[in-house]
């Protein structure tokens, strides 16, 4: 097993799937000549040529729809959103097109497509460039939504997403690209719709995905010093949600905090909290707590941005609350 970055893990997944299946192609802004706005597609143009690594104009609705049409005609497009913020001008093609085609055609046209790119806040990018849009897409039947937290999951899930016969929304963590981890060599896949225990523990269950897993690990390290044992469950896939391991964990710990970077109102965490209270009501010793991004557009000022983002300190406060420690 090699230790590589999240970025290189995604690059490997793309490269391997492009080699494996000639119907797979990558399309988006700056994916080719420029080698990717975040260098995820580095070297792919050189290996696969401009027919399969397609640089587009700045035309998200247009190329998202071209991807859906190409999928109807037998191809397996991977469509890169330079960041997910820009997908909002393409959302008609994703929601009204990709997500509904199979259903409204009575099962005739499945859409094997991956929409991928970085999501979430980075550093001081302000309101229009700092959003976690998982809840928007996870709301839609017909879409699958994936948000890996580690290089290994990034590689394994992207390969599964490309092989999936339905549309997959793939959120990469903008600030995770440089993070490193062990990634199995060769044809390594992680199934869509399977949660993972990222840290075993006994006192409280924290559900977190994408870069929030790192925040949860930090909080867990700090709490370990006080003798509090945190179990971190990373669903990895937000739709379909594999709530089995979450419920199993809550049955053991009797307490649950759901952590997410996105906005609180109608967030994915609200859905998970519902499923926990529904599926493990009798096991809970405290109400399910949520820690989220604050309910505001992202401010630019560094101090304000830090307050908006969920932090280890806020998570620790929530954990102490469900443990009735304060």
């Amino acid at each position: 097993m090699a230790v590589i970055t999240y970025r290189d893990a995604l690059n490997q997944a793309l490269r391997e799937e492009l080699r494996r299946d000639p119907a797979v192609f990558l399309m988006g802004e700056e994916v080719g000549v420029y080698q990717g706005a975040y260098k995820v597609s580095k070297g792919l143009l050189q290996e696969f040529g401009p027919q399969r690594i397609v640089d587009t104009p700045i035309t998200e609705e247009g190329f998202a729809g071209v991807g859906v049409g190409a999928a109807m005609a037998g191809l397996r497009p991977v469509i890169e959103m330079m960041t997910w913020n820009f997908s909002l001008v393409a959302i008609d093609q994703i929601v009204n097109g990709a997500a509904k085609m199979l259903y409204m055609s009575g099962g005739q046209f499945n859409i094997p497509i991956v929409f991928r790119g970085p999501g979430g806040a980075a550093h001081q990018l302000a309101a229009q460039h700092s959003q976690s849009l998982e809840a928007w897409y996870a709301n839609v039947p017909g879409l699958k939504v994936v948000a890996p937290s580690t290089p290994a999951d990034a590689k394994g899930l992207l390969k599964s997403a490309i092989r999936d016969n339905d549309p997959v929304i793939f959120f990469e963590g903008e600030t995770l690209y440089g993070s490193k981890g062990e990634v199995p060599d060769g044809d390594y896949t992680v199934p869509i719709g399977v949660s993972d225990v990222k840290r075993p523990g006994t006192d409280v269950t924290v559900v977190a995905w994408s870069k929030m897993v790192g925040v949860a690990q930090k909080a867990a390290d700090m709490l370990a010093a006080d003798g509090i044992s945190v179990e971190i469950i990373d669903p990895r896939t937000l739709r379909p949600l594999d709530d089995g391991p979450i419920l199993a964990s809550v049955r053991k710990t009797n307490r649950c905090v759901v952590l997410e970077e996105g906005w609180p109102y109608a967030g994915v965490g609200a859905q998970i909290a519902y499923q926990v209270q529904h599926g493990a009501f009798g096991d809970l010793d405290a109400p399910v707590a949520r820690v989220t991004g604050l309910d505001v557009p992202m401010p630019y000022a560094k101090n304000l941005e830090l307050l908006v983002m969920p932090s280890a300190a806020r998570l620790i406060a929530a954990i102490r609350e469900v443990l009735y420690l304060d």
Partner: protein
Amino acid sequence: MSTSSLPDHVARQLAATPKAQLLEMLYQMLLGRRFEERTAEMYAMQKIGGFCHLYIGQEAVAIGAISTLRPDDLIVTAYREHVHAIVKGCEPGPVMAELFGREGGVSKGKGGSMHLFDRRRGMLGGHGIVGGHIPLATGTAFAAKYLKRDYVTLCFFGEAAVNIGAFHESLNMAALWKLPVVYIVENNRFGMGTAIERSSAIYDVAQRACAYDMASETVDGMDVLAVRDVVGRAVDLARREGAPTLIEARCYRFMGHSMSDPVHGHYRTKEEVQEQKEQDPIRSYMNLLIGAGLVDRQAVEALDQKARAVTDEAIRFAEASPEPSPDSIFQDVYSVPYGPYTTREQ
């Protein structure tokens, strides 16, 4: 009638098109008309629900255009598409059954009037977001180029759709990448109640192609042979050179925007509609064929009887088809039904 007195395109088409096909086109126009007339009746009887947009008056566009295609060519259309689907080869029975919301419908009753799909016939929908399907057609053309196949995609939409971003984004990519697609604007003068003069800064829709250095033509959309002539050239160009074309077919809808809209309403006068109806594309084409000695009134009458009979049969098929079973609700959301959450909520 001697062919020398005919307009060039008519003479050319009469000379080049087998008689059987010329008659088939007349039959398809009659079938389209009868099908839509009966659809209106079925709607009034509440056998059909939802938004339902009739094609009456515009038949020359779909029939002239689709007559130039091979069976492996594709069409992608907006929601006023019952006739496009039938002309592309969908059986009238399953099309009517779809309007009825029945299991035997082309989309198993899940799509309805606006979402007719038939993979085997190259009918790729039936889309309800104005202009939203234009990128899809651009994508199927992208796939043709990628796969080195020589099928062509025709994309149909109304003149109001040329004001939406997806139209411009698509034309730009199709011209930039040389994709084998023909965009056909069915300019029936109105987007619901808004006349083109009130919605578009440019009256000549075809001129919009200039912005993308794309070939374009304007054609009389009430003249089926003119449409066939112009679309035929564009399809050839797409097939041979992979070059896209924008075609504006000027036509008129004789009915309201949808079944819930009166024929003239506040935005056009009764007189205007009446005047346009005098240019009925079916009558003009019938008279042309009779004048050219290719058919007589009796033969036309026989074609019309056949169109009525096929429509009756389509209605019988739809009536006999069962409603979709409640079990089908969760089918076809995903290729492989998934997961603990949906199963629990079911």
